[in-house]
């Protein structure tokens, strides 16, 4: 339904300009650098912009136009949209600000006018007052932040929906820095038309999206039921991580009853997320923790977690954290204990958390993991490999990448400096999530388990 926003065959950039530092220039450059379809700059003052033939209006463009990106002053937007409507354009991304968000009557009236024109011509709208769409696969990129200021993440399978454009930009820059892949990012600003409900629906069907992250300030009045129904449906297909901004109490609504007084805004959203089977990240850290585990790890069939460690203390910390998050660190079954005793030196601890102690080497880890990973009573394995010990040389990490064939969640704790970071980079590039904090690992693993249960329950409510 919204395909033309992400995969248009042609796009018109209205307000395109050769002037350095202008929004209309950055957007045009973005398209020019990455987009494979037709690009038409629209600006009556130029014959040519950045080597592309410019047009005075959308109607003058000879070929078909699927998408217009509008970056002209607010008061001109209804006219531009009218022009696009006559041309038969399907979608408009309105970057321009100066509408309802200004709190002025003029802004609100302009916004209503935009809505009317769009409705009359059947144009779907993202925005206004937004940074629009970044699609790493098609090259659509209306983010008007230049690449040297906001790096684009590598191509990947995580998509981001954000009400806030600024937060989306910061998050993407951060993802780029940490090497996390992105499929699509959408920021819809004033949300006069396309909203999170439709975008969730679209991304559910998108073959290049495996995990969706939704930054939400609030759902539109009267749209709550659709939001719940859609989110529930989408969660059956792929995980949706949600972060709710504005957690403090809503003012203004006179509490007519006890119940109304207790049903604070955020309380209600927690309920809604639970009912919608969304996975809530409660902090910034958690957003990416959850996303990185959910986007790389297979489903977790049960709650039994085994820990293999070279540091007893961290093994205990991790055990506490995992159990506190509702998962289980079971005792090693008798037959496995026997197996482990026969292959390990006598000073190793075969009870879960399995402690290989500080004199371990790569091979000792590999031997134990070869025993653990194929077992049906092992649902996930966490490896604590503090790299400071002399015996670890890196083979373990190569083994872990290959061990993905066992189809079980496999996570790693690495604490330390440069060496730890080097291994972390290697592992994460190969789809093995690495954490420094046992608590954060436990929380993310628990979200994976929650999601696995949602998937296994299937259509059951």
């Amino acid at each position: 339904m919204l395909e033309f926003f992400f995969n248009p065959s042609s796009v018109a950039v209205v307000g395109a300009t050769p002037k350095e530092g202008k929004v209309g220039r950055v957007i045009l450059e973005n398209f020019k650098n990455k987009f494979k379809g037709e690009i038409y700059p629209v600006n009556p003052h130029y014959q040519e912009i950045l080597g592309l033939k410019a047009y005075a209006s959308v109607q003058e463009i000879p070929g078909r136009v699927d998408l217009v990106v509008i970056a002209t002053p607010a008061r001109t937007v209804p006219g531009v949209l009218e022009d696009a409507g006559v041309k038969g354009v399907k979608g408009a991304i309105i970057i321009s600000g100066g509408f309802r968000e200004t709190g002025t009557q003029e802004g609100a009236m302009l916004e209503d006018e935009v809505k009317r024109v769009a409705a009359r011509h059947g144009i779907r709208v993202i925005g206004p007052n937004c940074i629009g769409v970044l699609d790493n696969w098609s090259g659509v990129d209306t983010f008007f932040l230049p690449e040297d200021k906001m790096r684009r993440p590598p191509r990947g399978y995580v998509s981001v929906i954000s009400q806030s454009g600024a937060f989306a930009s910061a998050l993407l820059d951060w993802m780029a820095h940490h090497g996390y892949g992105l499929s699509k990012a959408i920021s819809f600003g004033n949300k006069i038309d396309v909203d999170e409900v439709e975008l969730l629906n679209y991304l559910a069907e998108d073959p290049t999206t495996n995990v969706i992250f939704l930054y939400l300030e609030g759902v539109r009045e009267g749209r709550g039921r659709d939001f719940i129904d859609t989110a529930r449906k989408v969660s059956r297909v792929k995980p949706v991580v949600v972060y709710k901004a504005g957690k403090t109490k809503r003012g203004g609504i006179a509490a007519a009853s006890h119940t109304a007084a207790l049903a604070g805004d955020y309380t209600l959203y927690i309920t809604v997320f639970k009912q919608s089977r969304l996975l809530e990240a409660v902090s910034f850290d958690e957003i990416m923790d959850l996303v990185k585990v959910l986007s790389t790890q297979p489903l977790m069939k049960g709650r039994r977690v085994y820990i293999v460690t070279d540091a007893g203390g961290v093994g205990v910390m991790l055990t506490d954290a995992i159990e506190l998050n509702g998962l289980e660190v079971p005792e090693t079954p008798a037959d496995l204990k026997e197996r482990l005793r026969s292959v390990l030196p006598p000073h190793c601890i075969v009870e879960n958390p399995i402690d290989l102690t500080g004199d371990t080497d790569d091979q000792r880890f590999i031997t134990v993991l070869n025993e653990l990973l194929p077992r049906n009573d092992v649902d996930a394995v966490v490896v604590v490999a503090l790299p400071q010990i002399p015996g670890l040389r890196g083979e373990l990490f190569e083994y872990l990448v290959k061990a993905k064939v066992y189809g079980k969640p496999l996570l790693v704790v690495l604490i330390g400096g440069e060496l730890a970071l080097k291994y972390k980079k290697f592992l994460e590039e190969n789809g093995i999530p690495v954490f420094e904090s046992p608590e954060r690992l436990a929380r993310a693993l628990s979200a994976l388990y929650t999601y696995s249960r949602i998937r296994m329950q299937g259509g059951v409510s």
Partner: protein
Amino acid sequence: MNAGSIVETALREGRSKLLEHEAMRLMELYGIKVADYGFAESGREAREVADKIGYPVVVKVVSPDISHKTDVGGVVLGLKSGEEVERACEAITKNVRERQPGARLTGFLVQKMMPPGVEVIIGATRDQVFGPVIMFGLGGIFVEVLKDVTFRVAPVSYQDAIEMLGEIKASRILEGYRSQPPVDKEAIAGMIVSLSKLMEDNPYIISVDLNPVIAYSRGAVVVDARVIVSRASVVNR
């Protein structure tokens, strides 16, 4: 009278709160069990109602102008005879005249005094975004101080309702503790489902507090119901 006309009457008369007996009747229409009750316009009538219900009873003031009955001395508990009922009605009239002089007195609600049990609260509110939302919690300090409550956006299924009972922190109290038998969870869950239905059927009801509902090992009974209505525009109708 059906549910719609109870609400309609209140709105037509410019009331935002249903009268006590209207609220009770509304609950009954949805199969929500309430303590035996009757409405009386005078002390003598109250006595007749009490005789029919059986003692002990409670008498509560019914007035469109009073929102917190106890605060104005509008509730008398544990009445064991007809004389006590008549005297209670007189006392309530006097109290209200003194403490809220302008308040209209519609009459009295006479209710069967329920034996002690586990007090719970079941409530509903209508949210602008999500529509009807149903709440469950334990009564008294659990709700007042600890805010130990849980919510669901309607429609709430029976399964959802059973889950809600398990979600509050003090849910063990429902299981029975210190030799108390467990409460009738099915009965509470049934009320939650019925309230969800009530909210979906009646768009002008904007909130309901069933507080307290007394739960027993068999059954649960609404002792007080507060229903707020409004014609003000709410999107989720």
